[in-house]
Structures are given as C-alpha cells and as structure tokens.
C-alpha cells in the first residue's frame, strides 16, 4: 500500500474540525410556540450545541467523522502496488467491425470494449502509457502513447464503429511500430473475433492479450432482397444461430405497412421467400424481421423499386452482338447502335466505340473497345498474345463478382498506362482494361471481344454492368452499399450541386461536380440524392445495408493467432491498483446513511437515555426522566 498524493492528507484535518464544530454553539433564531410538549422528546440530545459542554457521542457525529476520514484517505490516492494489470506501455486495440454493434452485452460489444479501455485508462500510473488503436477498414491510431487519462478518454469518445471488418494485420503492424524500443509493453485486443485475419500469423513484439467481447451467436439476417422482372420480390433469410426462430417479416411500401409474413427458420439454415404483393406505385420497399435480435444491422433490408433515371447510350460498332446483349440487360438504358460511318456526335450519357475512334475531340465519358493503333486518348501499340489474365486489384469494385479464371484472350494491343489511368485487368504483356480516374471518366479495352472467350463467360455481363456503373452519370442509383463504404456520386453533365439525405433526415450538400466521395454512410437505410440540373431536379436513391454473412455470423470467435517476435525477458513491470474510487464510493454511502439518520432519527444517541436520569432514592416516589430534568 502506498499513497500517491500524501499531501492530500491535510484533508484529514476535517476530522478534528468536525469535532470542534460540535463544541460550537449554534446561534438559533427564536420562534414562539404554544407548547413544547410535542417537541420535548427530541430536545435533550441536541443540547450538545452548548459551548464547552461535555461532547456527547452521537451516531451522526460518528458517521460524519467516518465519512470525512474515508474521503481524506481517498484524496491521498492509496494504491496497492502490483495489483493492476497495466504494463509500462500498453497498446489497446479495439475492434470496430460491424459485428461489434451487437447488443448481447450492454450497451453493445463496441460500447463494452470502449468502457473497458476507458477503465484501463483510468488506472494509469505515473510512468505508464497507453496507446489506442481502432481496427476499422484501416487501423486508426486514436491516441499515441500517453499517460494522460483525459486525452485517452477523449480519444475513446471519438471511436466509432466501422462499416467493414477490422483490419487486424494493420493494427498489429501499428502496435509493433509503437512498441518497438519500449520494453515492458503489452497489447490488449478487445474484439469479438470478427476482424479480418492476416494472411499469415501476425508477429508481435509484445504479449497480446485477447479479451473476447460478446456472449451469443444467435442472429437472423436478411441476406438478400432483389426484385425479379415479373415484379416479385425475392428475400433470403439466414439463421446463424442454433435455435429455431419464429419470426415475422414486416413489408413496408414507402413506409406504410403492406404485409406481415410469418417465417419459421431452423438454426444454421437459410430460407428463401418470394413476395408478390408489392403495391403498384411503391418507390422504396422495406423488409424487417421482428422481433429483432442482438444484431440489428442485418434485420432490415431495403429495395429501391423506383426506376432510375434513363440514360442514353450509343454503341458505335460494325457488329458486336455480345456487347449489345450485355447493355440491354441494364434497366433504364436507352441504347442506340450505329455503324461507324453513321456516327454523329450528339448528347449521350455514354458513347461506346468498338474498333473505331472518331476524328477530333473524343466525346466523354467513353468506352473504347480495341481502338485502332495510334488513335484515341491512349496510344496503343502492336497486338501481341497477352498471356494469362489477372486482376489488377482483387478489391477493385469494377471486378466485383467478376471471375477471370477461365478467361482467355487471343491478342491484345500493348499499352503503357498514362498518368491518371489505372489498370483493372492486366496480363503478362500489359494492361487489358484501363479506366481513367477523375471526371469525366473513360475506359479502354485493349482487345477485340471477338478474339477472346470473355463474352462467353458469366463474368462478361457483370463486368459490363460494373463498367456502366463506373462510367454513367449516377452509377450509384438503386445500388446497395455496405455501411461505411464511401459512395462515389457521378454528377450529371450539367449538375450544379447535389443534396444527399440520409435515413436520419440529415442532408449533406456536395460541392459542384465532380463530387467528392460521400462517406457519411454509417447508418443503414435509404439515401436520397437530389441533383439540381439546369433543366430541373433529378431524384435518385441508393441503399446502405449490411449483407455480409461473415459479419452476420456474430458468435464470438477465437483470438487471432500471433507469433512473438521478441519475447521480453524478466518480469514485466506491473502497475499500482488505486483504491480511491472504492473509498469515494464508501464515503458516499456513509454520507447517504448519515443523511437518512439525520432525517429519521436526528438525535439518535449512543448513550442510553437511562444514564442521564437521576435515580430516585429509596423511599421516595419514582420520578420520570422529564420531571427530573425540570
């Protein structure tokens, strides 16, 4: 036991001060009353206020002395050496994966993790430091190593859940860089085991303690909601828990309850449901599972029924049936196919040139397919056998759901990506698909589709749709994005500004085109985009919701597997456990007790009343206490 602030012991002077106050006479205002008979039995014990009278021991006095003593000792910050679990430098990592929003622990897994970190921050002693890392889409250093508890607490106040699973590898890398050169460090991970695991076991420079948060895996989620061309709505519900659940699906059309469908789903099974009672003029359909469960993020799904604004697309080609069919799959697309000789520039939302590039300025946005060598914005070289086809970046949204494993290309033009262009699909000989970043957007396929088996693959129409999402104005319309995922809003050609209204009613105005990515997508729901055009207003919507089975499977998982880089030698320094919070709590209890005693028995004395009564002599008439006092 040691006192970290011994100077605060001066506060113990309040103990004799209280005793002194009991000696002082209180100057009381006089009040004339008809009788003292009803006050009489409370009077005697209060006469301790008379100066220099013998101090009478009362319960109130004892409680006040006890409270003052406990508070005084607490101010001196007593602590038990070696009892706290904090090392010299502790890196606390908090998993901000969406599954941490589960409320199976109060207030939520994430809230509980933050509270635990806050508690650790409160136990810091002189010489001890703590750093905070938030594991989101990318690891974020919330607070650099510091011994200031208030800084750590304010940093924890800024911690927010991420829309995607936490990146554990980045977090460990960050923690290693913090702890390198700091002996006696440790890493504490608060997680439910759903952060993205590294491809290989992470190597850590300090011992890692995994504290699992969460208690249940019971969760039912809406995995998918789509609408067929016939108008039926398809819903897939998955029970990730073990117990059978009897649920109801509430269908709401534009916010109004349209139908309630019961559903019984066994544990670890998936159930498909088709619903065909969609009201005719519905703009937004919502499906909600009731009653809810511990993880609410996946209990509701939205579907934008309203048709997106139509876009005019012209395909300039001699003959390309594959591309025509792929383009016609997209609703709201007004496709015009012209021969190269018949092409005339006009107002189109997208121009696709297949084997042809017009003279002069190229209209934008444009998709160039196998342009003649030397023409176009990106000069192409000679055609070569490109070799095996590879994705440029597997996480590129343009390759979402696109498999390139079975794709073969006979020949493609060589090209060197210019500045501002990125490679989406590449091969050994060079890029196969390039896109121009920024506004306006362009894309370039360096090979003739007829010289590859790509149009015969399922990946082709998906790739075309992804390219249209990227190139067409809008692109986000009616689309579903994960919570926290930035949404790129491609402006209409003459748009002045855009207002994005979230599910909570908050509206964000985006600057004139090109718009910066819209990042306030943490809340699931339907987001409305109003673009102000010179010809009027254009309304479109997109949806943010969680449709990720790996996140919906909320059962707390095991801790990540790590390998120690450098095992620290010798015993680790341990912190001092402060006990002043307990003393303050005890003092509060004592003071409340004293207050209650004051209210109910204000003059409760420890001295029996009988001892203050003069005992009658033998042979005399016994007198009562009141008569003796008179």
């Amino acid at each position: 036991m040691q006192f970290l602030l011994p100077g605060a012991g001066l506060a113990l002077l309040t103990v004799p001060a209280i005793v002194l106050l009991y000696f002082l006479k209180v100057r009381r205002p006089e009040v004339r009353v008809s009788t003292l008979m009803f006050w009489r039995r409370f009077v005697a014990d209060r006469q301790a206020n008379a100066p220099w009278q013998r101090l009478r021991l009362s319960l109130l006095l004892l409680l006040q002395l006890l409270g003052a003593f406990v508070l005084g000792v607490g101010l001196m910050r007593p602590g038990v050496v070696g009892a706290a679990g904090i090392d010299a430098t502790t890196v606390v990592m908090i998993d901000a994966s969406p599954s941490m929003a589960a409320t199976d622990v109060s207030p939520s897994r994430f809230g509980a993790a933050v509270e635990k970190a806050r508690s650790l921050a409160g136990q810091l002693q002189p010489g001890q430091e703590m750093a905070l890392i938030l594991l989101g889409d990318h690891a974020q250093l919330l607070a650099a190593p510091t011994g200031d508890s208030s800084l750590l607490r304010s940093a924890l106040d800024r911690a927010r859940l991420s829309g995607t699973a936490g990146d554990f590898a980045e977090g460990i890398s960050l923690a290693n860089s913090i702890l390198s050169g700091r002996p006696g460090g440790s890493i504490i991970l608060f997680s439910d085991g759903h952060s993205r695991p590294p491809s290989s076991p992470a190597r850590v420079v300090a011992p890692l303690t995994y504290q699992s948060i969460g208690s249940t895996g019971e969760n039912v989620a809406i995995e998918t909601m789509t609408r067929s061309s016939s108008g039926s709505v398809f819903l897939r519900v998955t029970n990730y828990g073990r117990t059978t659940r009897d649920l109801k699906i509430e269908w709401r059309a534009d916010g109004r309850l349209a139908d309630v469908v019961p559903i019984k789903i066994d544990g670890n099974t998936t159930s498909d449901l088709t619903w065909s009672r969609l009201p005719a003029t519905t703009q937004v359909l919502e499906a909600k599972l009731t009653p809810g469960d511990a993880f609410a993020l996946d209990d509701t799904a939205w579907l934008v029924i309203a048709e997106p604004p139509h876009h005019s697309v012209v395909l300039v080609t001699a003959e390309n049936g594959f591309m025509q069919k792929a383009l016609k799959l997209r609703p709201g697309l007004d496709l015009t196919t012209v021969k190269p000789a018949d092409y005339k520039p006009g107002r189109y939302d997208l121009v696709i040139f297949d084997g042809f590039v017009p003279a002069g300025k190229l209209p934008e946005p444009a998709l160039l397919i196998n342009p003649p060598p030397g023409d176009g914005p990106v000069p192409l070289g000679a055609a070569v056998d490109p070799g095996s086809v590879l994705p440029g970046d597997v996480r590129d949204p343009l390759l979402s759901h696109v498999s390139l494993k079975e794709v073969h290309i006979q020949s493609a033009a060589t090209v060197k990506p210019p500045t501002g262009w990125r490679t989406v699909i590449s091969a050994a000989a060079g890029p196969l698909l390039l896109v121009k970043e920024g506004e306006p957007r362009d894309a370039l396929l360096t090979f003739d589709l007829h010289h590859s088996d790509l149009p015969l693959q399922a990946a082709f129409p998906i790739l075309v749709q992804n390219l249209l999402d990227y190139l067409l104005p809008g692109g986000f319309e009616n689309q579903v994005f994960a919570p926290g995922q930035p949404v790129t809003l491609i402006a209409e050609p003459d748009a002045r500004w855009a207002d994005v209204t979230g599910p909570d009613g908050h509206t964000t105005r985006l600057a004139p085109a090109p718009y910066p990515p819209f990042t306030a997508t943490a809340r699931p729901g339907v987001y409305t985009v109003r673009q102000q055009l010179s010809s009027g207003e254009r309304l479109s919507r997109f949806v943010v919701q969680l449709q990720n089975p790996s996140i919906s499977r909320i059962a707390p998982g095991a801790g990540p597997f790590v390998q120690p880089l450098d095992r620290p030698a010798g015993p680790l320094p341990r912190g001092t456990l402060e006990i002043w919070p307990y003393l303050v709590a005890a003092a509060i209890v004592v003071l409340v007790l004293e207050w209650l005693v004051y209210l109910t028995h204000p003059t409760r004395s420890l001295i029996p009343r009988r001892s203050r009564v003069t005992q009658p002599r033998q042979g005399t008439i016994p007198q009562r206490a009141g008569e003796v006092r008179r």
Partner: protein
Amino acid sequence: MLTAGELTLLGRLDLAYRRPQSGLYAGERRSPRSARSPEFSDFRPYVAGDDFRQIDWPAYARLEKLMLRLYVAEEEACLNVVLDTSGSMVMGEPSKWQTARRLAAALSFMGLAALDRVQVGALGGARLPPMRGRDGVSRIWTFLEGLEPAGEAGPAELRLLLWARPGITVVISDFLVEEDGNWAPPIAGLAARRQEPVLWQVLAPEEEHPSIAGDLKLVDVETERTRELTITPGLVADYQRALTAHRAELARAAQSAGGRFLNSSSADDLEAMMLAGLRAGLVRRA
C-alpha cells in the same frame, strides 16, 4: 361578536343533549320527569289521589280500566361554557383566541335561545352567574369581550369548576400545556359532577402542520421555557404523530367520561365549526 348572517345560521340550529335534562324551570328540553305538555309519553293505571282530568276516557271505554295519560315534561337544561384564556391562545394566524371566543359566543347564544341555563367562565378565571333567556346574550358577549388571554391554565383548573346543576360542560381550549399535562382525571371529574364533557380543541393551522425548519430556539409562550432544535422533515413528522396521539388521548378521555371531543382550526369560520358540531352530534337542526 357575531354577524347577522351568523346569528341567522345559529337560529336554524340547536344544541343536542344526549340525555333528558332536569332543570329548575320549564324549558324546551325533554325532562326525565312527566308533566303536562303536548307530547304524549305513556299510560299508567289510575291510583287514588290522581288528577281525574288526566284519565283517558276513551281507553276506559275500550278496556273498562281507568288509565292515566302521561306527557313529557320539558324543562330547561344547563349549558356551561368554559373558555381557555391561557397565553397560548393568542398564537396562530388567525388567532386561536378570536376563534375560540366566537365559538363560545355562538354556543351561549344557542343555549340562551333555547331557554337553557347558560353559564360562561374562563378556565381558572372569572365566571358569570347563570343566565337564561335572550336577555343574557349581551351580558355574556360583553363578558367574553372583556377577557384577555394571559398566563397559564391547564387540567388542574378544570378540577376547580363546580356546577350546581347537571348539564353539558363545553371546554374550548387548545389543550396544549407544558409537559405531562394529563386531562383525563379532571374530565372524569366533570362526569362525576353529572356533567357531559365536550372538549372542543381549537388549533392554528401552523400548529397542525408546522412549516418551520432548520436550527431554531423554540420558546414556550406561557412558561418562557426554551428548547433548541434542528427541525427536519422527520422531526416534523414525529411532531404530527405526537399531536395525533394527543388528540386520540383527549378523545379517549372524553368518551370514557361519556362526552365528546371535537377539533377545529382557527382558520375555520363559524359555519365550518357548526358543521363539526353537527358531525359530532353536539348540534342539530332546529
């Protein structure tokens, strides 16, 4: 002392005696004795010496027996009003003294209006000789206006009251005395003197629900004794419990002596006090 409206109110009311009253003179109260009056009481067989005029001849025709008709005698009753004039009666807002004095005046008026024998006096102080008839109203009121509350008065003074005739003794007081005042023996003494005791307690609102708080020095207005207290809500609650117990003790003492206990607030008007009398059976509608 009383307004015209209040006198009109009192004119519609009358004192209710529990037992038939036997007085010196004829009056309006039912007497235990038989006499000539419009109200039939009973029959009894004729005996030699009875007045022939009281024989019920129709009864003789039916029964062939001589029967006498008896009638209820109506005589005066005795009403004794005792007013507490101790110093504590000046307390309260409005003052208990004003209320108690008006109550004494009202009861006296009702007794005199019913041809009762009314005697008014102060507890431990001066007393008027018995009055009868409405002529006594002005004398009694003048006597009451001349009284001033001062000094101490308690149960001991009640023992000193001696009444010549049986009747009702109404004690109007706050019944607040300094320490260990026991009202039961003197009240029982009233019953022994053939009096029906009626204890009418008048307290100020402040005394029923004290609003004082904090560190105070309480001074007894009669004895000048002081007590230093820290008044808390708990202490006030204990005060009210003690007051309730005190009232229950007074009621018990009155009932065991065949009497009644009433209480009023000094904030009550005369109508409210008469309603309290109606509830307690001391007053009835004429």
